């Protein structure tokens, strides 16, 4: 088992490096020039200042040397300086990551809390109204464009009904808590500032529902399909023949077997939530990594793009690894193999 983990970790490092190399090559074939994106109009028109800029950011070096420098710095834990914010990329990411982490985690928990039971019940009570509801939720969740959904939710629950607070992480005139983790729910709880905690929690409701929608749809569908398959297996028939309670048959026999594909999907879905919330963040004025990534891409901010690539690749590889390891817990056959 330990050997397996070590070999997987080694592969993971190679995967992350490969991902950064691919992105590095792609970013360098884009005709846009970072100097043109970063410099003001006067500076960008002055060849001397453009040359100076390129030298300052190492853009005048041969490609392989630029990549080598990136690797060397990465090995020392240095992600470089962002061209567009002129700050260390790490500082930027530390600033933006908590907002995304908080939102993605809540959204993920929400999609599990609703998607799993809904999928299970839908399979057990196939063709009942619960099943129809589950299929409807899945359809809407998967197919409604996030941008649209975000606006509709905001317009109805904030604009019309005034049930939910507006965009942003806190009320405009609220004082943000002192930063400890950057996660507002935790920071306010640690400070004992329950009014701001409530404000932060309420601001999370709409964006997390929007962000959860597509994941929720996927989880519901997958759970339902896996459950249907499990319920058709011989061991379920045997269990029923033994006269076990229906609930025991479902929770004890069918669910554990149905969970394997759901765990795989869930892991990847969480990684996706962490890295792909651009639309939700845009509409809800959420200062997260999605917006940062988007901005880095449109300003051809090489150091930020590379750092984010490395981090995203690492998240995906790690999540995959954790998913595979969790199989051992869920399925004794894998552990023995």
């Amino acid at each position, binding site marked *: 088992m330990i050997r397996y983990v070590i070999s997987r970790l080694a592969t993971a490092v190679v995967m992350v490096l490969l991902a950064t190399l691919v992105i590095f090559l792609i970013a360098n074939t884009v005709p846009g020039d970072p100097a043109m994106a970063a410099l003001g109009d006067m500076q960008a028109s002055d060849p001397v200042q453009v040359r100076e800029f390129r030298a300052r950011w190492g853009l005048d070096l041969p490609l392989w040397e630029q990549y080598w420098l990136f690797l060397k710095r990465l090995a020392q834990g240095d992600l470089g300086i962002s061209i567009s914010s002129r700050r260390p990329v790490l500082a930027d990411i530390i600033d933006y990551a908590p907002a995304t982490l908080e939102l993605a985690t809540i959204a993920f928990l929400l999609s599990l809390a609703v998607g799993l039971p809904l999928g299970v019940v839908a399979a057990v009570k196939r063709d009942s109204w619960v099943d129809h509801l589950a299929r409807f939720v899945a359809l809407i969740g998967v197919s409604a464009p996030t941008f649209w959904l975000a606006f509709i939710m905001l317009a109805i629950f904030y604009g019309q009904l005034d049930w939910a607070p507006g965009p*942003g992480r806190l009320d*405009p005139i609220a004082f943000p808590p002192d930063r400890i983790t950057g996660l507002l729910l935790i920071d306010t709880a640690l400070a004992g500032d329950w009014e701001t905690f409530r404000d932060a929690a309420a601001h999370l409701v709409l964006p997390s529902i929007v962000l959860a929608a597509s994941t929720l749809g996927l989880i519901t569908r997958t759970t339902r399909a896996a459950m249907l398959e499990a319920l058709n297996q011989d061991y379920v028939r045997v269990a029923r023949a033994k006269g076990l309670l229906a609930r025991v048959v479902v929770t004890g026999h069918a669910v554990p077997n149905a969970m394997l594909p759901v765990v795989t999907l869930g892991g990847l879905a969480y990684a996706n939530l962490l890295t792909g919330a651009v639309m939700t963040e845009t509409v809800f004025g959420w200062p997260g990594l999605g917006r940062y990534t988007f901005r880095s891409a449109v300003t051809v901010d090489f150091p930020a793009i590379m750092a984010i690539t490395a981090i995203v690749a690492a998240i995906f590889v790690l999540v995959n690894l954790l998913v595979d390891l969790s199989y051992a817990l869920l399925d004794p056959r894998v552990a023995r193999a």
Partner: protein
Amino acid sequence: MADQDEPGFGRRPLMAGAAGMLTSLLAGARPADAQSSARRGALVIGLDISDALSLDPVRVYQYSNPLPTRAAYDGLVTYDAGDNITVKPALATEWSYLPDGKTIRFKLRPGVKFASGATVTAEDVRFSFARHLAIKDQPFQYISHVESVAVVDATTVDLVLKDPTLPVISIIATPAFGIQEKSQVVANGGTDAADAKDKDKATEWLNNNSAGAGPYRLTGWQRNQQIQMVRNPHYWRGAPGYERVLIRHMSESAAQLLAIQRGDIDVAFNLIPEQIATLENDPNISIMGTPSLDFIYMAVAEAPSNPALQNKLARQAIGHAIDFDGIIKNLAGGAAVRPTSFLPVGTNGSTEALTKEIGFNEDLPKARRLLAEAGLPNGFKFQLAYGNAAIAGVTYQNLAQKIQADLARVGIVAELAPMDQVNLRTMFLGGKAEAVLTFWNPPAPENWLWTSATVNRVARRVVWDVPADMHKLVADAGAERDLAKAAVLYREYQKRMVDFAHHIVLVQPVYQVAVRKSVGGLNLTAAGWMADLAAAKPA
């Protein structure tokens, strides 16, 4: 297949419980309703601030950050809202050129205090300019003709110019040249020494704090989230009207619209014309319009790849085949004006009437005649590049399609080339584009900043070999300190620019800003910092 009924499922009030929790959470979610005293003491501005790189004045040159910079820092001089021609006193009460012709002497207003309570001195002024000259970030480029700055006595400062013919007083009205409190900046790593470019470390502090004498003091900036300011109790024009000013980042105009309707923000800067229209009957909101000094223009290059465009007459034909009124009416919702050439309406010597008189005006027979004279009676083809962006609700995409359709009427074929903004800029600045739709916004309302650009760096982008007499005209107009005489020269400049036909200005937006009626005294300005917050107060 339907299994047997499974007892025990679907009965638990799980969903009901969750919904109950949610309701109670949201019920208490709006602790500060629009009428509470905390709310009334704060001015909340909705604005897209994602472009802001810094709030350190020496590095302020993007679109949104001059607003908080002006609120935190007063400069020596300023422009009053609505007048972008005559410079007004601020921290300096008077100024004049010394007999040597290249030294400008400023007398400081006595007794003005920084937000810290310390008095503004000549040394603070010297330090602020010296820091610019040493750090040499973008704002320095506007005053690179300043040689040095020297303290004469505690309330007198000299600005010495390398080239006294170039304007400077109008330029230093811009927020980047706000006066910084030397002791605070130095205490936080700032320096004006010759090696400040590498040694100055104050920017990080100045991004979250201010050291100025403006009406408000910066107390924090959470990137892509908000900028927080508090009242400067020592402000020399009298105590500002709000306890706090909060600039809230909202990149989506639709979210800004909802937020101002709900009263979560007091001012919305980034609404598009259709959204403004929905607010016109809202009893709580008024719409303020201010003609900007920004414009969208089409640059037409004498591209080596396109012989037709090298012909002045063919370029003029483009200018006379465009339905400018249709663009303003249909694409900009009527909220725009159009200048004659590269000097926006509202600057010295540029008016809408002049555009009708000597500018490009839709005249298809004339366009056809010009084409015939150019030896291109059947028209010609060129590539029109533009970015994936929008200015005041006008998307380049729509604008390009409109121009394509307009030009087709006289046989000119515009091949549309959409691309991302960075690619576009790389191509255009490299002088590789045939024609480009792009945008110009000025760092300060000084005509010379526009005119000198057109005959120098912008000329290279359109592969224009500028004749010597055009250079002389621009230099003479810039050196002319009598506004009326300068206006005559600028009229001549615009006339010649139309004749050269490299820059066809299409739309100068009238920015429409939604303001809740609970806010009074907010003065919008086109001079570069959007609004003067000094006089804003609860109505």
